């Protein structure tokens, strides 16, 4: 199974993460709309890693569960962490320069979504999208 890790340290890395997620999504036989949703979510999360986490890394892999095929993407940073997760997931909430849709928007575009974060220890966001 494909499993690759990419650093996220600048804008170009965000684009490379998108391209990697797209290629793994194609391998996992996600439909075009599913691919687009996942890649968009990955783009939001990679940008969060860069903007708020001060950089980090993404791990992308093709996973299976029985007959199901899907893609899991993990975004890690060692930034300041998220003090109030509920607030961060609220639409319209932004601490930076986006539209405030990053985290909440990404959650709506995937099938499984989890965040581990605490102040001072960085943030890990894991998303999974299954082919229907």
């Amino acid at each position, binding site marked *: 199974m494909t499993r690759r890790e990419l650093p996220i340290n600048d*804008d*170009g890395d965000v*684009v490379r993460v*998108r391209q990697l997620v*797209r290629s793994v999504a194609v391998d996992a036989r996600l439909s*075009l*709309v599913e*691919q*687009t*949703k996942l*890649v*968009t979510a990955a*783009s*939001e999360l990679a*940008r969060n890693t860069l903007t708020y986490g001060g950089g980090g890394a993404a791990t992308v892999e093709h996973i299976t569960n029985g007959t199901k095929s899907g893609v899991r993407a993990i975004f890690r940073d060692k930034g300041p962490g998220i003090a109030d997760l509920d607030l961060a997931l609220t*639409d319209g909430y932004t601490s930076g*320069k*986006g*539209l405030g*849709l*990053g985290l*909440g*928007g*990404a959650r*709506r*575009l995937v099938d499984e979504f989890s965040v581990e974060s605490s102040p001072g220890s960085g943030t890990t966001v894991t998303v999974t999208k299954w082919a229907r």
Partner: protein
Amino acid sequence: MDSVPILKIGDVLLVSIQTDLQDEAVMALQESLAERISSTGASGVIIDISVLDVVDSFAGRMLATVAAISRVLDAETVVVGMRPAVAITLVEMGLSLDGIKTALDLERGMRLLSGDGALA
């Protein structure tokens, strides 16, 4: 850094986004477009995003900002060529692109700007 070409067709400036835009390219585009609107007196701006297979909130904000700058300079913006999967994703994400006019393709966008959009 690739710069984005801006073509002039009559009173309309056409911006074809060719690739994923990074921050610096977005800033450069906003500046050069504002200058071209001012120097040409263009009344409309068409942004063709048919090449983009992903529009995230960063790109959405870029489109909204370009439209807002153009509006202040008395030019109307139409975004054309959005792919169906991108439209579905934007709506599901909650990014409605309020205040941005859209048209299916360049031809319809031109008609919209020339004032007979209702016939399109």
